[in-house]
């Protein structure tokens, strides 16, 4: 009963058709609790908290452009490359939609990486938000598979050989490796059969991403956003309503995001792509240098750092799986790096390490790149397995402020809770 009274209490009074609908399907109420005036948000959130909403926007852009591209795309080995060229040359605004889709994927990954580094810096994955972190990682994993399957669809040389090399990783599995690879291919080689199923998965997995994203936000709304101080909200003086304060702040981020995306699309639409992918797939000739898209380069570097086929596959998988353990590997009770002077420096070392891995992944595995890649891979795991737990034990954090409001507003007593 109390529940239904609360329900009535929080409900907006709506009249007419809106009221009729609201009585039966309280969608205004739902939005109001999710992103409206009834969602209290820490008042000190900075711009690093923009990337969640930007990821949502990127997902919407990818789905919209993807649905219309699929109206013109032909998922067969014979037709795929030509249909993509037709989209670029003949379909009305096809070039624009495809460039937005391809560069949108890059920007989506950039946003997600910034979102994840935000969590690393401010300890957002810590108790009680471990499952928010896990759900985010599941989305990240689904994004990798979706992006990889999408990269194969234009059926250019890079598409074909990326598909060949990555599906061949499964052949590293002892005994049944070859059977697994032929099962993935539906053939004895990479061909139209693989292309068809990749097209299907590339369309289906984003639906799963939407589903997991909803659960991600559901879990987020239970304990609400972390904040730059990493301390708990203690009362209404520490928060502002999400709308209009953070809807407005998010819109500033949306403006910057769209500028970046438009800049890529209109001024450098192919800068992040590989020219080889404008050469039709040729099963009888391998390009001299096979590279994935930039956002997967660090993982590719880890794959190649281990001189053993199976070992490389395990290391690459492990580099993502280990992220699930981070809430427990990081033993510090203090969330924000603001109050962790030593961790703050190791955070930046880790950022540099992932950038180095990216550069290594872009270069052919020869000479010094091999040893640099191995050192950077070692450090990647060392950061999580050794540095994170040990720092939590030995570091003495700076004193935490009493509350968000005293930290933000100084000595001013009990600020007006804004409406």
């Amino acid at each position: 009963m109390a529940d239904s009274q609360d329900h009535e209490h929080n409900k907006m009074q709506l009249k007419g058709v809106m009221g009729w609908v609201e009585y039966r399907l309280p969608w205004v109420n739902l939005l109001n609790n999710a992103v409206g005036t009834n969602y209290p948000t820490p008042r000190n959130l900075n711009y690093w908290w923009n990337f969640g909403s930007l990821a949502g926007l990127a997902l919407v852009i990818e789905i919209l452009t993807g649905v219309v591209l699929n109206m013109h795309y032909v998922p067969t080995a014979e037709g795929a490359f030509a249909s993509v060229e037709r989209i670029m040359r003949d379909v009305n605004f096809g070039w624009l939609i495809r460039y937005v889709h391809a560069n949108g994927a890059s920007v989506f990954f950039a946003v997600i990486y910034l979102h994840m580094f935000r969590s690393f810096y401010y300890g957002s994955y810590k108790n009680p938000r471990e499952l928010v972190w896990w759900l985010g990682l599941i989305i990240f994993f689904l994004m990798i598979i979706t992006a990889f399957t999408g990269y194969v669809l234009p059926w250019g040389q890079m598409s074909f050989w990326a598909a060949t090399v990555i599906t061949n990783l499964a052949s590293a599995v002892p005994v049944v490796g070859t059977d697994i690879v032929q099962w993935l291919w539906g053939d004895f080689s990479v061909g139209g059969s693989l292309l068809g199923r990749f097209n299907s998965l590339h369309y289906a997995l984003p639906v799963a991403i939407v589903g997991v994203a909803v659960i991600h936000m559901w879990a987020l709304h239970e304990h609400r956003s972390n904040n730059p101080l990493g301390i708990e909200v203690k009362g209404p003086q520490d928060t502002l309503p999400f709308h209009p304060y953070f809807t407005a702040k998010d819109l500033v981020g949306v403006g910057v995001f769209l500028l970046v995306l438009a800049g890529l699309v209109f001024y450098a639409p192919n800068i992040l792509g590989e020219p080889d992918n404008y050469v039709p797939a040729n099963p009888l000739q391998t390009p001299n240098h096979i590279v994935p898209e930039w956002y997967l380069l660090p993982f590719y570097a880890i794959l190649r750092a281990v001189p053993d086929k199976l070992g490389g596959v395990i290391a690459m998988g492990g580099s993502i799986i280990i992220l699930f353990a981070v809430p427990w590997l990081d033993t510090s009770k203090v969330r924000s790096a603001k109050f962790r002077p030593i961790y703050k420096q190791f955070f930046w070392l880790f950022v540099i390490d992932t950038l180095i891995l990216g550069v290594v992944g872009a270069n052919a595995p020869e000479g010094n790149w091999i040893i640099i890649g191995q050192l950077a891979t070692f450090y990647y795991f060392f950061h999580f397995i050794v540095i994170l737990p040990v720092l939590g034990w030995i570091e003495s954090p700076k004193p935490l402020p009493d509350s968000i409001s005293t930290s933000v507003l100084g000595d001013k007593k009990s600020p007006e809770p804004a409406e």
Partner: protein
Amino acid sequence: MDETDSRRNFLYIATGAFATVGGGLAAWPLIHQMNPAADVLALASTEVDLSPLAPGQSITVKWRGKPVFIRHRTPEEIELAQAADPDDLKDFQPDSERVQNPEWLIMVGVCTHLGCIPLGQKDTDAKGDWNGWFCPCHGSHYDTSGRIRKGPAPENLQIPEYVFLDETTVKIG
């Protein structure tokens, strides 16, 4: 009480077991549909006319979507292949096990590392340190018998099933 408990447990376990087995059986068509289909399996052999190939020449034919390297080896290449020191071979196989007729080396031209196509079919290609084939992706060297000598590939280039239908015609697959 005990009796009804165990009766109920039995029913739970039996129902659960049936649901599990049923679920597994229902999943199998969804999994097996991804394996090579009947029409793919039906296209599994290729016939090749070898008469235009002089010693020292190679051709690449497509079999099951993959390149097959056919090389009419020169006497020097055959000698090199047969003289290989077994201790040097990572995946030991004498040359005689890899050919039916030493003049004709027939193998799948797919690197056993991650599936790239090795160079070496053309005279102008890099042939690697053993004068056979060289994979540019990750640097595997194969000898004149297609055996792995150096680099990350774990195995020799694969030999497909084939039969000579007459002196100059071979059926692969």
